[in-house]
């Protein structure tokens, strides 16, 4: 096993440690904030499938090297691939990523994710579906896709829609950032452990030698702490969030927020409005629909639907917002994307509908999951 501080080029992107019946997997691209490359996803998928069969493995711990747990899928690589000619290369990336999300969501053995840093997009996808999510004072969670011309994918329509009230719509549409305390409060995290205790926790977990969630939970509990939630936390605004983000359409959400500040100033609402107005109108609409559908679907159905959606986005026939978003945010960094259509009113229901239909491209198929042995019918992620 390579030393952790190695900087060789052929450094493995996922480090593997075997500790008795526990396996510690460390995402190892600290410079890229552990953004998931195709290679990482493939490796994680192979490891998870192998561990599922392996009776010597009882627990999988997933963490990130450096200041991030994982900042998402390696989108710039995907855009590069698509730029090179074939959007189906990009689609392959998501196919594999979503399969990994599904395997985790239906995993029979407990997965403990140590979220000591940035958890965004694809990073949430490889952690939130697992049984235990440990937040720390360094955790920063966000699903920032709407600002990128994408939508919350990786099964987010499943887990966001299961947050209290309409908090999920708020988090998914605005891309707002949550800290560890907020993650715990809304259920995205199952535990809060101060980062200084993480190494002790890890040590303890490696000694558990059990797959019993109750036992593992009790071990994490020993290191847990009740975090302090900042006063201006959005979580204290659940009333407003429920009132406004429960609305039927994005337009109605925005106008109800505007109504809230008609007579009194409110920085939080203004900021919320600002992020909504900066996001891609198409992204907002398909994201809202996706989360709404997700509320009524199993995690598998959610991923199948999101795969259709993401293929439409990659194909770029319906809208090129994703490429524009990547240009403005990731490449040119002018932070001034020109969305097309530019206004919510122009994005018709029919345009939104198209994102949910099958993709008309030769050989294209709906996402298909590998057969799962002993799959519980409710194949529920643990949220």
């Amino acid at each position: 096993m390579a030393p952790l501080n190695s900087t060789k080029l052929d450094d493995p992107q996922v480090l593997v440690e075997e500790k008795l019946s526990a396996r510690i997997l460390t995402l190892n691209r600290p410079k890229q904030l552990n953004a998931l490359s195709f290679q990482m996803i493939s490796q994680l998928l192979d490891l998870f499938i192998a561990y599922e069969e392996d009776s010597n493995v009882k627990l999988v711990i997933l963490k990130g090297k450096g200041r991030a747990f994982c900042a998402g899928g390696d989108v710039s690589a995907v855009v590069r691939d698509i730029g090179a000619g074939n959007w189906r290369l990009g689609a392959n990336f998501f196919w594999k990523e979503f399969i990994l999300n599904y395997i985790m969501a239906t995993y029979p053995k407990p997965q403990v994710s140590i979220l000591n840093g940035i958890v965004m997009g694809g990073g949430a996808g490889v952690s939130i579906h697992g049984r235990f999510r440990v937040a720390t004072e360094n955790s920063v969670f966000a699903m920032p896709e709407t600002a990128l011309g994408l939508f919350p994918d990786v099964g987010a329509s499943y887990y966001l829609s299961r947050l209290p009230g309409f908090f999920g719509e708020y988090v998914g549409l605005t891309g707002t950032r949550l800290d560890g305390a907020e993650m715990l409060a809304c259920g995205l995290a199952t535990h809060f452990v101060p980062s200084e205790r993480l190494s002790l926790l890890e040590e303890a977990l490696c000694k558990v030698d059990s797959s019993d969630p109750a036992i593992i939970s009790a071990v994490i509990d020993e290191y847990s702490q009740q975090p302090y939630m900042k006063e201006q936390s959005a979580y204290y605004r659940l009333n407003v969030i429920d009132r406004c983000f429960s609305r039927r359409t994005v337009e109605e959400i925005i106008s109800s927020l505007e109504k809230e500040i008609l007579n009194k100033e409110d920085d939080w609402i203004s900021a919320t409005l600002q992020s909504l107005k900066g996001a891609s109108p198409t992204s907002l609409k398909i994201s809202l629909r996706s989360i709404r559908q997700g509320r009524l679907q199993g995690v598998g159905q959610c991923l199948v639907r999101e795969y259709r959606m993401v293929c439409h986005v990659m194909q770029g026939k319906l809208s090129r917002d994703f490429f524009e978003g990547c240009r403005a945010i990731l490449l040119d960094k002018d932070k001034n994307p020109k969305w097309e259509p530019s206004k919510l009113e122009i994005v018709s229901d029919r345009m939104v509908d198209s994102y949910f239909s099958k993709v008309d491209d030769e050989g294209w198929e709906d996402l298909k999951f590998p057969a799962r042995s002993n799959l519980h019918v409710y194949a529920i992620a643990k949220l």
Partner: protein
Amino acid sequence: MEQQITRRNQVLTNHLLVHGEPTLLSAAPPLSSNSCLSYSPPDLNEPFSFNPTDMRVYLDSHNIPDRDWLFGLITQSQLFNPKQRGHKVFFSPDYNQSMEQQREMTMKRIWYLLEKGVFQGWLTERNPDAELRKFALFEVVGIFDHSLAIKLGVHFFLWGGAIQFFGTKRHHDKWLRDTENYVVKGCFAMTELGHGSNVRGIETVTTYDSNTGEFVINTPCESAQKYWIGGAANHATHTIVFSQLNINGENQGVHALIAQIRDADGNVCPNIRIADCGHKIGLNGVDNGQIWFDNVRIPRENLLNSVADVSPDGQYLSAIKDRDQRFAAFLAPLTSGRITISASAIYASKIGLAIAIRYSLTRRAFSVTRNGREVLLLDYPSHQRRLLPLLAKTYAMSFAGNYLKQIYVKRTPESNKLIHVLSSAFKATFTWHNMRNLQECREACGGQGVKTENLVGHLKGEYDVQSTFEGDNNVLMQQVSKALLAEYIAAKKSNKPFKRFGLEHMNNPCPVIPSQLTSSTLRCSKFQTDAFFLRERDLLNRFSAEVSQFQAQGESKEYAFILSYQLAEDLGRAYSERELLQTFIQTEATVPAGSLKDVLALLRSMYALICLEEDAAFLRYGYLSMDNAAAVRKEVTKLCSELRPHALALVTSFGIPDAFLSPIAFNWIDANAWASV
């Protein structure tokens, strides 16, 4: 030595056991438990040949994202009574609450939906899109609870609808927005203790006092008390009053007026008396009441004056001179109630079928071979025959309901009559079907169907009233036959072709049914429509002949009609089923070729053939020979076995979220395990 011991043991064992029985003790340890029946989710064993999401588009037809939004709103609130059963959560009212508690919960749920903007545009927007959205959301509410839907239906469709349709601008401006925002809570006082379907016979009387410019409403006798008025017992602040209007001693017939019955604090207004209709066999979340009016004075402007008005000095003014015509013009637009009832009956049928079919794919009973595994209920041909034809009918009615909604939202003065006839026929047909369907589903679930939480049994009580309110089914069907007869007489008299109510087929030569019916003929839509055309045409001829015959014997036209009730009934059914088959075929035609279309063709054939099998008219009047009828019956069993593999996909396509079905539709072993109870 060892051999000896073994032998000795065997001898002893044989002594202890009943002679001749196999040695049970040595065969299996006596106290080890049998392996328990395990629940195997049908979703894992029943592959789908088509995508249920695609099928749902044809069934729900419109506003699917809006429907899902509302399902989501409901599942995000504790008010909708989530209950954990096994690993699933179900949303259904607590029917074990007292009537009073259920009514309060209904009202609380309305406040919640109001706050979330569900009712936005229900009355203030008038365009086809807004109307379809309203229908869609209303249907979703009904899937959660019929009481909640009815409570909303009274407020929006009856009270709000009356103001929209019978009122003029001054009423619209004053009431519609306040109704949409529940500033006022409306009800609709038409039915009286002594008069229901016969609205023209109601006894409430209104006079005009030109000195004060007020109407004065009175309940002159006990049979004139308003009865079954939804919302009246507890919540409503205002009501539409249907009353005879007596101006200067002359009765101008039935009119509608607005009266306030409670103040803003909920206290009953002076000169109004209200009583509670009490506990019912269902819909206990709706507060039905009785109302008496004792010289209740209301301003002159409260007369809903779209067809007739009274001037300040007390002159009666109307463009329509004939009282009967005036009455008809008055009630004509109020068909939306029958349309929403039709649709909600179908959604209730879907709930029943989704539960019963899912259960029949997980519950086993009896083995066919000794020691063999017990057989899944739905693998019994008899069980298929019980449920799958009902499934086909429910599909047919879904498509027909969509067609009805479409022509309703695009209505013109010319289409009003068609909408009236069609909505009457469908309301009766669908609600009767629903009750039969629920009963069969209840029985198909065995004892589990009796548990309230499993819904199928309980829904019978909740939906029974549908065959009575907004027009008694039998009366509605008579109106259908009457309209067809009038059309028939008019066409014959003027010697012009039929061009209404889908009777155009009567202009063609009489269809001929082949004497030999092969499987492929039976499944051909041409044959199926021919058979339905033949029946309708012949029954209409017979009905007309019989009515004329009675008239020739000196009976009045009205009484002749009453005497011909058997043919009237048969004709009404023939009309309704023919319309259903045709809309099914139209829907099918919009589907691109593929497995989904193939399954629809199976369902359509099942629908057509089950109608042929069930209606004795086909044999009675010889549209089908006895051989033909036998061939039909045989084909039904074949269709059952061909539909069986699609059963789960077909009920999944209903798009009803799991949380709105019931525990026996899922892991019922889990839901009933000791750890769960």
